[in-house]
């Protein structure tokens, strides 16, 4: 027996002055299942709620309809109220007779029938309400952080500091990311390694952080609170437990090749430490360049000199399987390859370099010990041209978006150049200078006024060699004249782009990415660190071009989201999720691809048909992943998929009640 109680709220005079509530009460009382109708001045007030509670008990109500303000205002309030007297909170419906009636239809004659209709509709829905219970899932309170740049390091430190375990997976032999490659950083010109190294060391020493370098996540399954990851530890050929980092191996190794960390500007050995401050401070043996692996199986110099016996040529890749409650993805960015700019020499002129290469040239720990020597002949360049927006804001050859950091780092480069080579002159070709950050405009001003960088508004059209220098041709668009600069070195501020394997990473971990390969946040303004997949968060430049301050802020936010999750013992999920009626499900899978959250999987069920057993596949909704959008229920042709709280039967009943 459904026993519906209806409560009409005056909202002071907000409703009562525009709607004839007596008439509404009169008509409502005539509806089937309605056993009690009552009016009150302010239902949301404590005495108002008490009125409802009392009536539920007195009249043995098992459904409640509140005719008042928008459910967006007080749905929670009233659910809690009915819940407190033992009624399932989802056996309550709200008729919005304020925002969508009294406030927009001030004339009692015309508004009252609308209110009657709305209440009737709510009653019809309430009659079809069923008790809904939230489900609870346990939470594995360990976090996985993928990518060990400044973003990943910061997130790992923040999570660990809150008392939770973190596994930090970094693909390279050391953590540090791009920031480790930088010399000084805008807008304050702190030395990058001076501020980064302490954090790297801390991450390496914190007992709650487990660093897995030279490792990659192979796959991720499960859902929020309960992820399972397979992590591949690539064979490093060095036993990290035994190695003391003494350096004898790489000092003695006879084979050199261009070093990745220095972007090929310097050399490294076949067994090497990427850079002196690397964490862990232990080498990796690169099998692709090692003589033992590539040539004759001889050499073995490193093994001979290694006193602790840490070299292990036989080491194999290893797969770890670990469980996590949440994931932070911080895989960073790459730089656009200017080989596609034929007009700038297509990467063929040795003295046309990228900005990151310039960072390595100015860096004291770089291949030139911080002397800016140009690659072709080692000469100190006097006239240096910097070109901004190379590949950025270029829909023809590059990417359409602005890379956000290059205006600022170019100003920085102009300053560093002048500091290192006081007799030098820099020329910066730009289209706009985007210095929108705290103290950024001031920094740009210093570059021009204090350091005399010559800014020229215009995109360079062509660079060609003349003798041993380079001719740079542009237009000074402010003058309206073509200009030429004969330069010793040209530095291209190449676009920030996503890592080439970003789409695969997103697919493996199960969240979405945009057409440029940047990972998509759940909402651009209000959920900038969440992904569409609950429990997976984003930090740093993998989500879009970002400088260090923004990266660190976002990493902190991602960590806070993880910690917020771990602060609970169980995860309560909204009960208004999709549910499959297995008996009706035809296993057609129409619903599966429609779900934006990959909440639908297929499962096998066996049924008895006559005397035999029949196996078939049916859909299954994972309530922890489902957000309750209802798209699947519409896709389902057999009516097997339903959405709790907004079920087919309920909406159907509402339509019927409305159209009476």
């Amino acid at each position: 027996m459904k026993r519906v109680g209806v409560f009409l709220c005056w909202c002071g005079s907000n409703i009562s002055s525009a709607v004839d509530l007596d008439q509404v009460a009169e008509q409502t009382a005539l509806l089937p299942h309605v056993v009690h109708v009552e009016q009150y001045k302010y239902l949301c007030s404590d005495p108002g709620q008490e009125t409802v509670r009392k009536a539920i008990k007195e009249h043995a109500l098992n459904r409640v309809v509140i005719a008042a303000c928008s459910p967006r205002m007080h749905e929670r309030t009233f659910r809690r109220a009915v819940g407190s007297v033992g009624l399932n909170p989802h056996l309550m419906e709200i008729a919005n007779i304020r925002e969508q009636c009294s406030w927009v239809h001030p004339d009692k004659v015309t508004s009252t029938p609308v209110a009657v209709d709305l209440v009737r509709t709510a009653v019809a829905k309430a009659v079809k309400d069923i008790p809904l219970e939230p489900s609870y899932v346990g939470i594995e309170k360990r976090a996985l952080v993928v990518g060990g740049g400044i973003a990943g390091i910061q997130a790992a430190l923040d999570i660990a500091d809150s008392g939770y375990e973190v596994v930090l997976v970094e693909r390279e032999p050391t953590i540090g990311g791009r920031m480790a490659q930088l010399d000084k950083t805008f807008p304050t010109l702190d030395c990058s390694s001076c501020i980064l190294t302490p954090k790297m060391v801390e991450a390496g020493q914190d007992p709650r952080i487990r660093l897995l370098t030279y490792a990659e996540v192979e796959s991720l399954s499960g859902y929020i609170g309960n992820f399972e990851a397979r992590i591949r530890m690539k064979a490093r050929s060095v036993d990290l437990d035994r190695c003391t980092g003494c350096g004898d191996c790489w000092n003695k190794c006879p084979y050199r090749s261009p070093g990745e960390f220095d972007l090929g500007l310097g050399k490294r050995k076949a067994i090497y430490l990427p850079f002196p401050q690397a964490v862990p401070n232990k080498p990796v043996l690169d099998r692709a360049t090692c003589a033992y692996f590539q040539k004759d199986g001889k050499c073995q110099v490193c093994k001979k000199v290694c006193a602790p016996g840490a070299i292990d040529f036989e080491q194999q890749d290893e797969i770890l399987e670990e469980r996590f409650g949440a994931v932070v993805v911080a895989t960073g960015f790459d730089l656009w390859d200017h080989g596609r700019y034929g007009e700038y020499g297509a990467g063929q002129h040795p003295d046309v370099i990228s900005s990151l290469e310039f960072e390595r040239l100015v860096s004291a720990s770089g291949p030139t010990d911080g002397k800016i020597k140009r690659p072709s002949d080692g000469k100190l360049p006097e006239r240096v041209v910097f070109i901004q927006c190379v590949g950025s804001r270029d829909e023809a050859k590059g990417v359409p978006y602005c890379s956000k950091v290059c205006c600022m780092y170019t100003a920085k480069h102009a300053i560093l150049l002048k500091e290192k080579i006081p007799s030098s002159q820099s020329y910066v070709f730009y289209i706009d200078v985007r210095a929108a950050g705290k103290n950024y405009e001031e920094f740009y001003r210093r570059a021009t006024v204090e350091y005399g960088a010559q800014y020229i508004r215009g995109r360079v059209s062509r660079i060609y060699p003349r003798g041993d220098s380079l001719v740079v041709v542009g237009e000074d668009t402010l003058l309206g004249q073509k200009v030429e600069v004969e330069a010793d070195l040209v530095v291209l501020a190449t676009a920030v782009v996503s890592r080439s394997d970003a789409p695969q990473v997103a697919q493996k971990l199960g969240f979405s990415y945009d057409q440029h390969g940047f990972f998509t946040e759940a909402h651009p303004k209000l959920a900038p660190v969440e992904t569409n997949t609950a429990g997976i968060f984003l930090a740093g430049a993998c989500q879009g071009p970002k400088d260090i301050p923004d990266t660190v802020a976002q990493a902190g936010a991602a960590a806070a989201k993880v910690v917020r999750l771990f602060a609970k013992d169980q995860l309560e999920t909204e009960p208004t999720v999709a549910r499959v009626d297995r008996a009706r499900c035809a296993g057609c899978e129409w619903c599966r691809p429609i779900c934006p959250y990959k909440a639908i999987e297929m499962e096998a069920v066996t049924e008895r048909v006559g005397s035999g057993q029949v196996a078939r596949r049916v859909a299954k909704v994972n309530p922890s992943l489902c957000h309750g959008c209802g798209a699947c229920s519409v896709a389902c042709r057999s009516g097997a998929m339903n959405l709790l709280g907004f079920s087919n039967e309920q909406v159907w009943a509402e339509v019927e009640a409305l159209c009476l």
Partner: protein
Amino acid sequence: MAVVDLTEAAKGREELLTRVRELAETDPLACYQCGKCSAGCPLSFAMDYQPRQIIRLVQLGMREQALGSSTIWLCAGCATCTTRCPRQVKIDGVMDALRQLAGQDGRAPREREVAAFHTSFLESVRRGGRVHELGMVGSYKLRTRRIFQDGGLGWNLLRHRRLPLKASPLRDRKTVERIFRAAEVRG
């Protein structure tokens, strides 16, 4: 320098943009004034407006200045600008479009000689279906009264048998006349 009245220019803006979009099959509004086109233009040194500025004039609706410029006539049609434009504006097409509009307006070209050359060239094509260089240059000289320009060069070519006196037109003259007529009808 004169003050540009933008509200005045705006009156003809839509019309100009529409015509340029039609004829050049490109949208000048995509241009963000980076100057890469001008910087690569081989003839920018001789132009009164830079190619970038021509696009700007079109963006603002400044028809007079655009159609009256020397730029649209000095453009050699090399498409270096279009090849390098980051916003995929077909600048060379815009130059063509503006020359056509100038012609349609019956306006005296800023570069008389260049326009006279094109007229003589097309006349020669219309007459014989193919260009007869000597005839064409002769007509050009009459048009521009530059009878003695390049005299030595012409003689040199004649001497090297590279400037035949006789034309070698199409057998059926109507073939090409028909095409000119068809174009006139469509235009």
